């Protein structure tokens, strides 16, 4: 099994959903592991499922806006 890592920027976050910007697209229904890092040094681990992906233009670059449904927290490897 191959585990590929990609940097993301978090746009919106709630207890049930997270919207991120990513340079790579993910497949709808794909389950992902996330590590979120905050400016204050805090971090959290989340397992989420991709529910929607739309293209987005950010600073002149095409990115993927991915809406994720939180499956569980604190269990990312």
């Amino acid at each position: 099994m191959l585990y590929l890592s990609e940097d993301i920027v978090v746009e919106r976050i709630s207890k049930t959903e997270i919207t991120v910007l990513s340079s790579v697209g993910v497949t709808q229904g794909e389950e992902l592991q996330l590590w979120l890092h905050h400016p204050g040094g805090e971090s959290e681990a989340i397992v989420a499922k991709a529910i929607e992906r739309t293209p987005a233009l950010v600073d002149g670059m095409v990115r993927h806006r991915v809406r994720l449904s939180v499956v569980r927290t604190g269990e990312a490897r």
Partner: protein
Amino acid sequence: MSRGWTPLEPRRATGVIVRRVPVRVADISATGCMLESGLGIREGAVGTLHLTVEGRRYRETLRVTRVTSLPGSGRRQQVGAQFLTLGASRRALRHLAASMNVELMDGSPALPHAAGDADRWDGLRLVKLDGHERSARTVKG
């Protein structure tokens, strides 16, 4: 979801997503490997390859250096990757590959595989280089 979990502020929050990609190992050496996958992988991507060889788990960090489409196989890609020498763990895959030869098993199906075979690894085995001894180890993902 955990009870009582309060998400942190999204402002300027960054992070990393980790995609779990089923792959088939087509070839492997001490410096890199050739994989096949049905999911989109881009050149320059970094990650960790996990393999089980005779019940023992190995891992190796890698960078994708080349991606080509497999003709006539839909979305399947052939992915070339270079191992990154970030550590010297006993479980490093490159150390195992360095001590063994790689050969295709007799009767292994010709490439490319159907999408449903993405997790199969039985087309590859590692053969130990101990004089005339040839102890094969089948690789599983």
